[in-house]
């Protein structure tokens, strides 16, 4: 290939192409920033160095968790807690088994949470959409069995209106047969969460702080990975409120689980040589 142009012009064209690719990747969306976990091992994998805000995220659980969704709810509550402190949170359920004392014990501001019990899937999604587009609402959690591409796009548009962040817990609350998996998804990330054995400090009885085994299965504009988290602030009297923790994320990264990586971690953007 002949290269007779001036290097500066070539650089300029490359820059333009890079900007174009970045624009395609974000889909022309406004950037609402990210919520860093406070640990480079995971923040480096996420676009913008943290959980992307103004997008919606999918959280699933294995086995029985499809019906009970306890570990996914724990993970979601802890990710949404810093957002709820900035505004208002809405949790849309179909089975109203979410316990506010349990949320409060984790450090989630339960007084800033509005719970809504929807009658069916479509209603859950429409309530989520409505809540996401509302001024003052920063985090919306919904429990839905499946979400198709259209519903996902609608959620995304609702998120972009005010920069609220959606969390969609995949749950079949009353058991039964699984529906056919809808192909594709408009979510920014997809997490698979399961409980992990806790490690109480040496010489102490009982259970330690709750631990979660988290796999990032899909991440737009980022990398996948697997980590072990610990909810450090759970059930401790000293930590009255997350606000007192001056911005520390309620999830502490304990270890990176490299062995269960789905794909080799490699940067998506190669530096143009």
């Amino acid at each position: 290939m002949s290269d007779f142009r001036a290097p500066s012009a070539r650089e300029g064209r490359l820059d333009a192409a890079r900007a174009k690719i970045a624009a395609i990747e974000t889909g022309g969306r406004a950037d609402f920033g990210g919520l860093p976990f406070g640990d480079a091992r995971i923040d480096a994998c996420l676009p913008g160095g943290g959980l992307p805000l103004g997008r919606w995220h999918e959280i699933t659980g294995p086995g029985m968790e499809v019906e009970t969704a306890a570990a996914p709810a724990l993970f979601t509550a802890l990710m949404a807690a810093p957002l709820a402190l900035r505004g208002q949170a809405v949790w849309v359920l179909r089975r109203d088994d979410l316990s506010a004392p349990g949320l409060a014990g984790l450090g989630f501001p339960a007084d800033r949470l509005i719970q809504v019990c929807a009658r069916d899937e479509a209603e859950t999604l429409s309530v989520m959409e409505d809540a996401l587009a509302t001024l003052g609402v920063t985090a919306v959690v919904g429990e839905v069995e499946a979400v198709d591409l259209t519903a996902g796009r609608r959620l995304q548009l609702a998120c972009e209106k005010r920069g609220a962040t959606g969390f969609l817990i995949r749950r079949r609350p009353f058991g039964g047969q699984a529906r056919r998996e809808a192909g594709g998804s408009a979510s920014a990330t997809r997490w698979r969460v399961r409980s992990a054995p806790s490690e109480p400090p040496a010489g102490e009885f009982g259970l330690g702080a709750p631990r979660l085994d988290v796999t990032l299965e899909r991440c737009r504009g980022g990398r996948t990975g697997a980590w072990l988290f610990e909810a450090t602030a759970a059930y401790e009297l000293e930590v009255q409120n997350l606000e007192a923790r001056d911005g520390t994320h309620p999830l502490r990264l304990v270890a990176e689980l490299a062995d269960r990586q789905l794909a080799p971690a490699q940067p998506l953007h190669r530096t143009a040589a």
Partner: protein
Amino acid sequence: MRAVRRLHAASAEAAALGLHAGQKATDALALVPELVTAEAEPEADTTALSALVDWCVRFSPAVAADPPDGLLLDVTGVDHLWGGEAAMLADFRTRLAKSGLPFRCVIADTPGAAWALVRFGEDGTIAPPGGQGPLLAPLPPAALRLEPETWAQIERLGLRRIGQIMDLPRAPFGRRFGQAALTRLDQALGRETEALTFRRPPTPWFARLAFAEPISAPEDMARVTADVTARLCARLEAESHGARRFELCFHRLDGKAMPLSIGLALPGRDPIRIARLFAPRLETVDPGFGIEVVTITAQAVEATSGRQVRLDALRDAALEDGLAPLVDRLTNRLGPERVWRSAPVESHVPELAAARARPLDAPAPEVRAWNREAPRPLRLFRRPEPVEVMAPIPDDPPTLFRWRGQVHRVRRAEGPERIAEEWWKGAIGDARTDNLRDYYRVEDDAGGRFWLFRVGLYADPEDPPKWWLHGLFG
């Protein structure tokens, strides 16, 4: 003993022939052999009266049924909508005449005077303010709503006019016929107030629109909803008030009233928002042959500060413009029981520790927040699920349990946290010391965290206490 059949009511034609209510049916038949009778149906009469009360709401929001055969309308402050009491009464007469019911109506200062005039006075009387005395004077004592024995006794004494009673000294009259008779007299003359049981709480926050031509098209209904709401909201705005509940009522040509109501999380008066909340329900209203009047009333009206005061507080602005409309939309669509905020309740019993509060109400300051040191599960089952357990007696956590057909080996456990019944809430004699639950927080070898409890203590080796799973920590 055989019951005597009596006339319950007589039509105008029958009355002209000398029949009257309370007459023995056999006597009546003897007088008028071709008499046609029908069984009295008091329940149906009550239903019809309450339907008539609903119909009357188009004239005034304060309507009180006066069983068995009357109703009272408080027209204070609404007659100007018709251009005076006479015009209102005329309109009332023409409209009610269409229903085919025989009726009499009067307007007076007091319910007692109106009752007397409508039954014993001239139909269509409008007593001038404070002028019911001369009108009542020629009426018989029966017009005072007294017990039949009392007025019969009064008449036996030769007092055949209320005017004669008014001239008597009060104290001896009261001693002779009882305080109730005096009270009735005073109520009729407006010397004593009388409380009426209105069908709806009387509210001065009332607006109505009447149409020259009955409407039935959905878009017309949406338009008149917006118009009547705007009319009421303009008044609320002018007087710096807001309301939490609005009731819209469509009055059909055939006399049926079709009410719709919506609630707001915060007192409001934005006509566009309120009309929008009504909009999805309009299709449930069956216009029948057409709607001639629409009314709206505001309930739970509170004074609210103006918009200007709120702008400085950012949270309030977000609340008013974002959250409050959202909560209103959701509660009106899903029902108020499906949208809530959990509020702490001071109870040790896990399922009672959280109550559902209205989403935007300020939390009660005197109730303590949940104890963060006592771990509570994130998912609390409404109904604890039975588990089979292997646990060393008496007080050890289980080592193994089976839930939904799956065996979980317990790796770590905490407990017991003993939660006994709230004996101070019941009778002291019913309190039992063995009515308790021992809760254990356990973790299985896969990391799942569960909340198990045992009901009662190990007492009878034949009947070991049962174990339940109450929640999941995740």
